[in-house]
């Protein structure tokens, strides 16, 4: 098969470019410690919110816990069309591990302006961690269609000034 010389060169460059791009994705993911949700735990969506069954069954104001100074764990239950809890307050400099699950349909959890973005799928636990060094308000928005009230489903993470 005859291949034009310019096209041959172009193909080599194109192939190399794609390899470089993929390499950059790998290197930068490792360098910045990029985390994506991965298998964490299985739950039964029908009973996960029952008191006593899981952290998502605890009273809403007890679902955010301080494990150590500046270390928080937030168990958020997604359901149509609210996150519970939907207001979370932590002091600046805190590290928060979000553990989110759904008791009904699929939802999304995107904490605007951060790298926290995950699918919330019934039966699964989505877990990601972030540190908040800037005080302010961050919205977490459901970004997966979950029914007629989907556009109203969001919550707020308030990072307060007192350190």
């Amino acid at each position, binding site marked *: 098969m005859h291949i034009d010389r310019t096209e041959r060169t172009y*193909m080599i460059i194109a192939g190399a470019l794609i390899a470089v791009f993929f390499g950059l994705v790998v290197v930068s993911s490792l360098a910045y410690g990029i985390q*994506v949700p991965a298998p964490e735990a299985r739950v039964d969506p029908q009973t996960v919110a029952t008191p006593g069954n899981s952290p998502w069954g605890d009273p809403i104001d007890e679902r955010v816990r301080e494990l150590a100074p500046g270390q928080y764990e937030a168990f958020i239950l997604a359901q149509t069309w609210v996150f519970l809890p939907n207001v979370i307050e932590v002091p600046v400099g805190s590290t928060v591990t979000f553990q989110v699950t759904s008791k009904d349909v699929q939802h999304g959890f995107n904490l605007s302006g951060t790298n926290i973005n*995950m699918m919330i*799928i019934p*039966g*699964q*636990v989505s*877990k990601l961690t972030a540190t908040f060094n800037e005080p302010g308000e961050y919205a977490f*928005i459901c970004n997966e*269609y979950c029914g007629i009230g989907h556009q109203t489903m969001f919550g707020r993470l308030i990072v307060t000034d007192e350190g």
Partner: protein
Amino acid sequence: MYARENKIAGWSLAVAMIALFIGGSMGPLQKLNYAGVNLYDTLNDIGLASYYQGLTLHAVLNALVWTTFFIVGFFTFALVRSLNMPLKMPWLNVAALIVMVIGLIMAAIPILLNLATVLFTFYPPLQANTFFYLGLTLVVIGSWMHGYGYYLTYWEWRKQNKGTRTPFIALAIIITMVMWQIATLGVAIEIIFLIIPWSLGWVEGTDPTLARTFFWFFGHPLVYFWLLPAYVSWYAMLPKQAGGKLFSEGLARLVFWLFLALSVPVGLHHQYLDPGVPAGWKAVHAMITFALFFPSMVTAFTVVASLEVGGRARGGTGLLGWIRALPWGDPSVTAQLLAMILFVFGGIGGLTNASYNLNLVIHNTSWVPGHFHLTVGSAVTLTFMGIAYWLVPAISGKNLWSRKVALWQGWTWFVGMILMSNGLHILGLNFSMPRRTMIGAAPYADPAWNPLLFEAMIGGLILGVSGLLFYANMLGTVLSRKKAETPVEMPVAESMDATPAPAWLDSWKPWMALTIVLILIAYGPILVDLISSAQFTSPGFTPW
């Protein structure tokens, strides 16, 4: 010639265009809502229950019905001409079309009755009326039957033409249909084994992660099922229309074989943010996804080179002068050239989406519809419209109603899409604005979004006008009483290289083997894992 095939093609195209008309008309409504103009309350009176019912119509009719029906119509028309042989068993293809139409009606009724407002992905545990799933299944099975009709014809041609290379267009069509056959197994398994028994109440729960995985086994190659017919036109028809030749036919064949092998084992790149899928498998699919860019990069070179041959033959000189010399007065050519330009940006955005890390920022934001309106909404749809400008005259035997209106249509689509897509991209990237959301009613919508939402609305409205221009032209053409004096023929670009392609580029065994091996590697272990650990605990919900 080919009266029966023309009939199949014509009716397929008619259904495709009706679907695009209804589905497309929802688009401007969505963009008006973004910018604060809510027409949904008014539309309640004519039976549109919600933004999301409209969105379901928009996505299912545009992305599934318009594309699939157009493709089988176009393929039926092109295959027999490429092989220079009628369909072996035309009744099979007629039956295929009937099955597809029955399926479409079956799926459309629950959508129109607001019983299937589950969007295009119908992720369980959202649960639609069973007929929605049955209808979709029939549409897919009908498309398989079309494929079987094509394979039989191709088989017969091979028997009669031993030692001759399959004509490029025919080979590309058959490869596309085989890829589709493999890909749709995913969604067929999802619907038949997981969803239908669950929606009928035979089983109580389903496993949403498993369902998603089967869906995306199909969902990504679906993108290539849309795109490859456009590539058929870009490689093998457009150069002829532009006065050029197919620059490297051998590579064009190689590209299609690579798409067969690489289109399927990449679906997990849609599930990077799924909690139930291990990171290692996501990385494997990320790698194959990057490899999948290679055949598209080759396509860019070959197609542009083929067009350059045309531009120079038409008297264009200099580094870029040949571009001006292309037949920009031919609406079929112009629409497709503009589609290609938009596709460059669609491709760059696709690389972003495929990047494991960057995807975190844009997943499920409005960046994604911004992206795929450049691909399926432009590279594919605008190309199909460009094809329609010669195909509908060829089938109907009438002249195109107005070349001028058709030119305006192509350009307005181009401008409208730039505006809309730009707005959506930036809103997703900079502001994490969610996709598939009634933004006009979202309490978290930020005033800072407004200029971009307005830009997207203007784009959406221009696209609406462009759509109307397209329909005016199609109706004007078909309803015209005057037959064309010179019948329109299918444009087929000659190959620059007179030597036939090597035998390994006309041989199924090595490529099918590679395809199956790659799918087994990329999907075998993870599917075994997900199936064996499946928990069928999700009952159905209808929260709309």
